[in-house]
């Protein structure tokens, strides 16, 4: 009995040694890589000499992906990878000081501003492009030509309308099928804020985080209505019918011009990137931010968003310059 226990202890020790070996292997690897490039940890958090840490909204992602692609083609030494943690998740990291640029498809919230102040992080807000939220119905829908903002509110607000005839007595007595982006998306937040005035969205609305699901949902259903980013409409023009929105000055359809010059409202929303002022001291980040500002408009158009006006980009440039000067 005694002997058996002894062996047991020994075997356990052996097992431990095996796992320790495994762990040891990792450690040596750690050390090797650590001494290889200064500190591995620093490289990972994006504070390395040629790294830029960018995270945030998935809506802004295609623009920044294009920017990084172009920038790295010109400056192969610079590493500017982009994460997609969502606008909120991006700000969380921004507040934690982990990122240099934080992309957002909405304004920074008061709470987040407070937290940034507490953390002692100064930042500037750069609008990069517009996204025109497009309200669409199926091409089989023959009764809607345009909607006023009030009608849109009645359609999507919880407990207001059940059938199309509740909205307008000339419209059919058929139940409204609503499709909306999911609650995590900035698109949803913006719509609820601007159109529903922070009311609740209809409980019958079908929500999806994937806008392509909304497109499919509305395509063949004459009683369906949906809203989503302009790019998803632009890609599916053949199978969708756009609904011009009337905000008191007659119905206006979202197009590159109406979104760009601001006449398509209130559903044009700006897309931002927030830049940590301190990071602008680093030359490669300042250069990257300037590059972003100079090229965002053109690249935004390429990936399905709408550019800002030239004046707005000039204002941005000035803001960057001042912030960089302040930081020094």
């Amino acid at each position, binding site marked *: 009995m005694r002997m058996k226990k002894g062996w047991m202890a020994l075997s356990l020790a052996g097992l431990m040694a095996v796992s320790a070996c*495994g762990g040891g292997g990792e450690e040596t690897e750690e050390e090797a890589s650590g001494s290889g490039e200064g500190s591995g940890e620093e490289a990972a958090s994006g504070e390395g000499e040629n790294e830029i840490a960018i995270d945030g909204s998935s809506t802004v992602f295609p623009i920044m992906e294009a920017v990084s692609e172009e920038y790295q083609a010109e400056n192969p030494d610079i590493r500017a990878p982009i994460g997609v943690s969502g606008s909120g998740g991006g700000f969380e990291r921004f507040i934690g000081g982990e990122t240099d640029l934080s992309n957002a498809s909405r304004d920074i919230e008061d709470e987040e501003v407070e937290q940034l102040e507490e953390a002692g992080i100064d930042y500037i807000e750069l609008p990069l492009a517009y996204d025109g939220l497009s309200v669409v119905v199926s091409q089989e829908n023959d009764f809607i030509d345009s909607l006023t903002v009030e009608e849109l509110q009645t359609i999507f607000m919880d407990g207001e309308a059940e059938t199309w005839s509740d909205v307008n007595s000339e419209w059919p007595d058929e139940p409204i099928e609503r499709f909306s982006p999911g609650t995590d998306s900035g698109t949803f937040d913006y719509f609820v804020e601007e159109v529903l005035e922070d009311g609740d969205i209809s409980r019958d609305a079908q929500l999806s985080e994937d806008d392509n699901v909304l497109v499919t949902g509305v395509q063949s259903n004459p009683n369906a209505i949906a809203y989503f980013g302009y790019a998803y409409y632009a890609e599916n023009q053949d199978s969708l019918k756009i609904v011009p929105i009337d905000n008191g000055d007659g119905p206006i359809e979202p197009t590159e011009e109406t979104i760009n010059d601001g006449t398509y409202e209130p559903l044009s929303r700006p897309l931002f990137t927030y830049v940590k002022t301190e990071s602008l001291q680093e030359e490669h980040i300042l250069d990257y931010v300037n590059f972003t500002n100079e090229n965002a408009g053109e690249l935004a158009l390429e990936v399905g968003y709408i550019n800002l006006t030239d004046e707005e980009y000039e204002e941005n440039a000035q803001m960057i310059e001042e912030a960089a000067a302040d930081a020094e």
Partner: protein
Amino acid sequence: MALPEQDAATVADYPEVEDNSNEKKRQLKNKIFKGIFFGAVLFSLLMLLILLVRIFTQGIGFLNWEFMTSFASRNADEAGIQAAIVGTFWMMVVTAPVAFVLGVGTAVYLEEYAPTNKFTALIQMNISNLAGVPSIVFGLLGLTIFVRELSMGRSVLAGGLTMALLILPIIVVASQEAIRSVPSEMREASFGMGATKWQTMFRIIFPAALPGILTGNILALSRAIGETAPLIMIGALTYIAFLPDNVFSQFTVMPIQIFNWTSRPQEEFHFIAAAGIIVLLAMLLLMNSIAVWIRNKFQQRF
């Protein structure tokens, strides 16, 4: 409709026979259930076929060497999956050894050494429970412990360790099954020859259980390859135009890249997403084939 001859035979076999209508009912029931089970198989096969056909018809045209060796891009026809393939590979290099050592070690201890008491039962129960925990919870764990506490950053190492934890319960359970299925005669014979527990374990039980253990490991790794949620949680990147050069590099993996492409508005991105899925499927198929091959090869020894 049952054949008359068959009816006759059945009746002859059972002298105290029930009346004929009952016989028909039983035969009918027999057929109905056969139909249901066959239908179940047919349905899943059909779904799989639809999925595969759709993915292959969409993606095969975009699958070429350039796709395998390019970084992601805003232009669908220039975009490639290289960073994601290499990232997945790097993650596996971390995940596989860690999960194997910890998982098999735990299984051996629980099966061969642990005393049968309440504490062991508690561990056992928790391992089974952990196998059912949603993967995003492991992502949160990885974010808190590896990324923040141990300040590994959003690195291959942090991702690999998180994945190792995720598949650990599966490996433990599979390895336990494998060890348990070694006939106790072998164990007893070894002890009877005067071998110690360690000798028995290392020379008899472990080799006999190895095919099962390896199969479990590889299948668990296949699961890790397809997981997205925990890695998004710990902040693996979506756009990355360089390859990891050590375990502290930032990285992306195939499911993240595919997910990003499918959510794009432009249809071409859906096609390259399909091409990405083909690459992922090929990788999984390869791994599963290796599992089968290992099982067959090692089994011949016993």
